[in-house]
């Protein structure tokens, strides 16, 4: 595995951990290894409109990224697994621009 791919995977793990914490602080138990990482949290009713705004604000602040309308319509946005990939991509893009 290349150094950058290793770094990306580690970052994705960190983001996933952050997301799991965020959901658990709101009273949702997440099966960290199971299907719940791939479940659609909108369909499960775990995130409402206000919750989504809070989540976006927290993610943008924590990971120093900026979501666009395109990201918000990306199906990956609706699962913990997908969202952690998306955030990792955005963070890497930002890092490569600033490098």
């Amino acid at each position: 595995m290349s150094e950058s791919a290793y770094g990306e995977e580690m970052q994705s793990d960190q983001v996933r951990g952050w997301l799991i914490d965020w959901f658990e602080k709101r009273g949702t138990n997440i099966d960290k290894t199971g299907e719940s990482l791939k479940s659609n949290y909108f369909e499960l009713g775990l995130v409402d409109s206000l919750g989504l705004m809070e989540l976006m604000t927290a993610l943008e602040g924590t990971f120093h990224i900026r979501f666009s309308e395109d990201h918000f319509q990306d199906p990956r946005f609706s699962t913990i697994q997908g969202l952690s990939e998306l955030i990792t991509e955005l963070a890497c893009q930002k890092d490569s621009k600033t490098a």
Partner: protein
Amino acid sequence: MILGVDHLALSSNHILSAGLRNLQDQGYCVKFVQDELTNSETKKPFLSCYQPIHSVAYCQTDRGVSLELTGHDAPLKDRPSWYQILMESAPDGTKPFAGDLPCSSKDWEVTVGCKGALAGLWDPFHAQLWYLPSPITKKQEKVVKNATVRAVLVPVVDLERSNTFWEKGIGVRRINDGHVDGRGWVHLAWKSLIPRWSLEIILFETESKSVPLCLDDSGFTCIAFLSNNIIQDRARLLEYGALEASESSEHLINKKRLWITIARGPSGELIELIEFEKENARELGGGRN
């Protein structure tokens, strides 16, 4: 950034339990009713008869966009809605509508592929709308009501200008476009990950002149969008052709603090932007939908 469609505003003289029951019968769940809400003075340019208070009832369905019933406590201006709404089926209390409308049944077929749309008047709200005929079912078969919004048609005076406003100002995506009987149309869609934040919108060229539409007209008067930065989004609407936009005003609705801006699009259509207070919002009662 605009995140999705919050609701369509549906006017009423007063919020009456009969009206709410009618919406519940169509599969809507009444999330909250709030009387005696202060009407911000920033809304004055968008009302034909400003009243210091009004009432709202927020009605939600999992199958489509939410409706906000707005009781204006004043006589409504009686004319067909500028926004032409197509429902999946006729809501209870709908009777045939006869009168001039900015679009026809054929236009719905050409633009969104919905055949046989009929014009109706939703009597409990005196709201003109379109609906799709119900499929013929066997006598014993239970008919599941689905009087949800299928699409919204916006008559526009200048298609190019309006398209810029809706695509660039609001951020709705283009699906298709074409011409019918010499009039241009653009099919747009807001596709959100949350179905009730999604909406199909058709801009349809009309020869009618735009009229000063008001929030207290009868029928469907306004499309409300959720924003996570109302100041930035208001500026973007003005940059891409909004004729006017109110300064954002602060409200406390259903125990939640939020900001509202009303804007008028290039053809006079009314748009509302809503931003919820994020911090401490949970303590005030949780999400709206």
